């Protein structure tokens, strides 16, 4: 089987990898690049645990082929904190106990960041609908929603207003 | 409901008030010929189980493996050292396991 040579950026770093045509981006990230923060919950795009962004769009990496990453900019959970500084969403998830088991957390954080980039002041309903593609079975979503709304508030600078 | 007093083989002081031991579930059907209640003198659960096992050989092991014990309503794991107060009510109930 011939492998494809793919040149891409992952979390801002230039990355090259080889993959077979049928391999998903999720498999490449996890098994090839060792970025296991992106999780597989279903493999059919129904749970959102594998959410990453490609050129700023949040997608399910289980529904993207590795070869499609050619020339794109991929962001995963591993690139969310700026070095040692957690993203406000990450901090707020910790402060609000927005996670229990934590398996859905990376995907939800990636999806929530994408929301706040587009809509810095979402309503609770907008957050709930935006995150409808990210299943969480532990929390009943309550504290996740709280954390996202609070992070949005902080990121808008509303705390200082 | 049938009940019986389990002989305590000379260990009884006579002054003590025995514990009331009751089986629920189908233990009594399976192991004690449908006898459900016993009066037993013992200081701890080891004594209770020992005396029941003497009366119904093999029962002790079944109780240890299959039951949880409620002593005056408080639920405990079956542990030999569990104290048995005079006059208390001891239920051997099916062990519980959660999700």
């Amino acid at each position: 089987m011939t492998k494809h040579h793919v040149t891409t950026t992952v979390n801002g770093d230039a990355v090259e990898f080889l993959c077979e045509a049928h391999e998903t981006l999720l498999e490449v990230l996890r098994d090839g690049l060792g970025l296991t923060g992106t999780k597989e919950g279903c493999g059919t795009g129904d749970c959102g645990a594998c959410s990453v962004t490609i050129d700023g769009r949040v997608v399910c990496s289980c529904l993207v082929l590795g070869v499609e990453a050619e020339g794109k900019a991929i962001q995963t959970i591993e690139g969310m904190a700026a070095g040692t500084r957690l993203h406000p969403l990450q901090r707020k998830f910790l402060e609000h106990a927005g996670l229990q088991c934590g398996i859905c957390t990376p995907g939800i954080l990636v999806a929530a960041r994408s929301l706040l980039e587009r809509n810095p002041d979402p309503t609770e309903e907008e957050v709930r609908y935006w995150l409808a593609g990210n299943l969480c079975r532990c929390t009943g979503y309550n504290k996740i929603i709280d954390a996202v709304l609070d992070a949005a508030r902080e990121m808008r600078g509303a705390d200082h207003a | 409901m049938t009940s019986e007093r389990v002989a305590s083989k000379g260990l009884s002081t006579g002054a003590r008030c025995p514990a009331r031991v009751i089986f629920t579930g189908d233990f009594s059907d399976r192991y004690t010929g449908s006898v459900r209640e016993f009066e037993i003198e013992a200081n701890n659960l080891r004594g209770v189980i020992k005396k029941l096992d003497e009366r119904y050989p093999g029962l002790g092991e079944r109780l240890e493996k299959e039951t949880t014990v409620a002593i005056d309503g408080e639920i405990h794991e079956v542990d030999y050292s569990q104290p048995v107060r005079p006059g208390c009510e001891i239920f051997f109930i099916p062990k519980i396991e959660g999700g």
Partner: protein
Amino acid sequence: MRYEAPRTLEAALALLSSANGQARVLAGGTDLLIGMRAGHVAPELLVDVKGITEMTSILAENGGFRLGAAVTCMDLVEHEAFAKAWPGVIDAVKLIGSIQVKGRATVGGNLCNASPAADSVPAMIAADASVSIAGPNGKREERIENFTTGPGKTALAKGEIVTSFLLPRRLPHSGDAYLRFTPRTEMDIAVVGAGVNLALDDGGVCRQARVSLGAVAERALLVPEAAAALIGSKVDAAALERLAAAASAACRPIDDKRGTREFRIKIAGVMARRAAEIALARARETS
């Protein structure tokens, strides 16, 4: 399996016609990759069309819109002019899966997957969209209501692909809407979908209407009887009831894990009526 990402339509068509085994067009991949994983499809060749500019553009054409078949749902939703003109199509496109799925899924893919429950199809049928098809024998146009022929089956011949859609110029006082019924608020497949597009005259009388239903037959249906119930009326309660009855009467659904036949027939009328009410309100708002 081979993967190719041509930059031109011609190159894509050449690849498709040269394929030895099964060749599939890869746009968003949100249905195709699931099918491949489940072993339902095992293509020999994937032709990724996302690098072909004309398939990924939204352009004005004759007062309407030329919508590339590989435009993602999120790109379409965020296209302000399109969203203003065709809110009903946007209603439908917004329901195609999660935000993540919409970031990849395309209207062309939603059509070509040929699911009877595809959300965008009834909305596009109601919008009177046409489908542009390119193939080894050149280009052709097809009415969208005639495109799907059954579950998983389309009017595409071997080597043909859908390149774009043409949505016509908006009439004055017109509006469209799409509603579907699902047990959950999101992340579901339509049990019933209904698209309504209508245009009023200055007196508020409905002069044109198109009504389409999804998930109630082997493919999305155009229901002229339901449209006829609106045309000539002021879309009053009586007309809406006639619309609902005509919509229910047009259904020929099956029982499946997503809904019973009986339930679908009943709900089709309700969804059509409610969609018409939204379309009416939108028509009244537009000049």
